[in-house]
């Protein structure tokens, strides 16, 4: 078990290193640089100064080497857009996204898995409705889903139509802050969770339908075991295999933030930061965000593999866990 975790952690570190280097170099090679932020008609001296601040006057390799050396000391450079060290910016944003991701994952699991079991194990109106709703969620782009949810929130005033906190928390304490974040969470969490819930539902429906075809299930029915028990005790765990494979990706994708949802609902998270960094070619921020994104994706997939091992003893054996 420890060998497994150690191996994967080592790999995660290597992955982060490779991904952030690739992001750094790709941003350097992409057209345009951060001086576009100064507007099209900035004076040449201003442009030169801005470039020097981000080490853009050095060659790409030299800049990369410099960055590596500093990264070893956990100094990831400064952001041009925000005028602050990248480390603090990325950590704050990742934290905000993590809050959102955990809630969204919980909602997606709570919605997708049970609904998938229902629609996969029976026929009739309920299954058809669940299938249709899932497919609608998959057919709408996240931009539209988020905007529609903002529209609903804005017109019904049940929930705040964006942001992570209200201005009233300025003078309150921890309790007020938590409560405030809690009412701001449903909107972006739902926007994030719906497509993922739909994915889980479809996968689960397929898996459980297949699992129910197994001989052990027929045998159990013949023995007179109740349908519900059959599903829960026999079919379900077997059906989790492909879902666990995808669960890790879902965790990672959620933790690295969805740009569209965070942009539309004004949630100050990692996805939005990554996109802004990329748009402005804020090179050190880009590398920092890519590193964090890589880290959480690798972590997510490791968790997914662990879940798979828990769910399926056969896998456990061969991974020698």
């Amino acid at each position, binding site marked *: 078990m420890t060998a497994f975790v150690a191996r994967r952690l080592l790999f995660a570190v290597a992955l982060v290193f490779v991904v952030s280097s690739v992001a750094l170099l790709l941003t350097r090679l992409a057209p345009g640089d951060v001086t576009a932020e100064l507007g099209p008609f900035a004076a040449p001296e201003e442009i030169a100064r801005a470039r020097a601040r981000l080490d853009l006057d050095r060659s790409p390799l030299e800049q990369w080497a410099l960055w590596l050396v500093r990264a070893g000391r956990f100094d990831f450079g400064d952001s041009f857009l925000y005028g602050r060290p990248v480390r603090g910016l990325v950590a704050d944003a990742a934290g905000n996204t993590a809050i959102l991701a955990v809630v969204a994952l919980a909602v997606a699991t709570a919605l997708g898995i049970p609904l998938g079991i229902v629609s996969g194990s029976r026929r009739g109106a309920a299954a058809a409705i669940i299938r249709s709703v899932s497919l609608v969620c998959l057919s709408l782009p996240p931009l539209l889903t988020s905007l529609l949810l*903002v529209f609903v929130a804005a017109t019904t005033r049940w929930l705040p139509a964006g*942001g992570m906190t209200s201005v009233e928390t300025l003078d309150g304490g921890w309790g007020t802050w938590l409560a405030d974040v809690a009412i701001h969470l449903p909107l972006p969490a739902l926007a994030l969770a719906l497509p993922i819930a739909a994915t889980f539902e479809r996968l689960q429906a397929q898996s459980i339908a297949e699992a129910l075809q197994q001989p052990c299930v027929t045998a159990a029915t013949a023995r007179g075991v109740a349908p519900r028990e059959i599903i829960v005790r026999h079919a379900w765990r077997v059906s989790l295999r492909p879902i666990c494979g995808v669960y890790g990706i879902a965790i990672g994708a959620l933790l690295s933030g969805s740009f569209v949802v965070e942009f539309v609902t*004004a949630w100050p998270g990692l996805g939005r930061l990554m996109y802004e960094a990329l748009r402005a070619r804020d090179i050190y921020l880009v590398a920092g965000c890519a590193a964090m994104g890589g880290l959480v994706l690798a972590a997510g997939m490791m968790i997914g593999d662990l879940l798979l091992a828990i769910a399926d003893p056969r896998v456990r054996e061969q991974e020698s866990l």
Partner: protein
Amino acid sequence: MLAGAGALIVLVLVLRSPSSEEPAAPAIQRGGQVIASLRSEPRSFNRLVSRDYATEILTLLTQGRLARINRATFELEPWLAEAWESSADGRTHTLHLRPGVTWSDGTPFTADDVLFSLQAVFDPKAQSVLASTLLVGGQPIKGTAPDAQTVVLTYAAPSGPGLRLLDNLPILPRHKLQTALAAGSFVSAWNNTTPPSELVGTGPFVIREYQPGQRVVLDRNPRYWRRAPDGGALPYLDRVILEIVPEQNAELLRLQAGDLDLTSSELRPEDYVPVRAAEEQGRLRLIELGVGTDADAFWFCLKPEVKQGKDPRFAFVRQPAFRRALSHAIDREAFAETVFLGAAVPVWGPITPGNTQWFRPDLPRYAHNDAVATGELSTLELADRDSNGVLEDANGTEARFTVLTQRGIGTYERGTAVLREELAKIGVIIDVVPLEVGALIQRLLACDYDAIYYRPILTDLDPAGNLDFWLSSGSGHFWNFGQKTPATEWERRIDTLMLEQAASLDPERRRQQFGLVQQIFAENLPVLYFAAPRLYYAHSTRLRGVVPSVQRPPVLWNADSLSVTN
């Protein structure tokens, strides 16, 4: 001392009496808060080193200037300086500072702060972005302070705008920033991690807190020097919140829902209908700000160093007759209708009717006439020789161009679509390539393009403030940047006229000279303009004291006189 007190009492009585003759105005409610939206975060709280829009708004709200240009009347108003005299040659200006003004932390405001700000702007180590806007005759403005309440400014040459330049200079506190300037770290002083208690100013509000990614909260400055007409303290509002909402559609939804009182920019033409519906339900007030001061522009890269000999089309593109023909080919009325849904006025040059002081209605206009256009093109030996719908010149080079534009802006998409259709009728074919803004600007700077359709913003309404656009050597002369010597005769003439105009003290003569510049521009058409939008804006019905302006920010420029009702 007694005489002074007596004079003060008399002064107060005198100032109070006229107001009792006015009809009783509805009582302005004090207190309350206004929520405005911002699209992006402030990069810094120091306007001298950062020119992004969020920093500009924050500076308008928290800092003061010596004199301010009223954005509705375009008059220069006394602000931190209450009176001034200028010498006859326009080079020496003596400003008398308003007495009794203090910074928001109680420190008295003196001439030393003015001198410090000037020093910071022109100090090369401070890397100020304002330096180029405050040069007169290419030289920095020099200042001296004979006493604590007087500042004498010396210009190196006569200046057309004169003291209007002072609107560009926010006065920053010496006692807070002097150490940073001396240590050479001014460029990162007052960055956005600075604790709000350090950010003192003479403006109506002070920054209470910056919550990164979410909002900036400003509270009223109890030490604000300006008084209301009834003698009471300003500002009326207790708090201004600048909420960060990056997405424009979401911003509109929240405005309609009442989450926001003000948006950061004018409405898009397609937003008119839902806002009008909200106005009819009494939830919003829709106002017309006026005609915008900037119009969409279409230009070819005319840099001989890049194009001559390498691009066979340059032979005819560089001729003004080619551009005049294109101008004739566009039906500007239809353009205004399609691109701005009718909410626009046709324009033929960079100065629009929105710039009331400098617009000239008597300039050459190119009427929509395809026959005339084709005639002009045939003088350049362009004709459709192989009947494929595309013009070719004598060597067979086709008049086909790639036009770059910024992706995602509705007016650019519609504008380029109209251009493509109209120009196809005279045989000029364009392929539109929308790019994201970083790539677009990179190609613009490198002259790595055929033509661009974009709306460049001229920062100053006064042409002497836009010399980087008008002068051939300027960094804003976008069809041919930074020329060492003028590439064409007409650019040379414009250079001479503009430099004269910038140094002339006679407003009438300046207007005349600039009219001539606009005439030359209209004859040679380095850039084509089609329509300037009528700007619409919406705000919540609780706001009072709104004085709209066509410049940004449309309402917050006058934030100290804003109030709310319930």
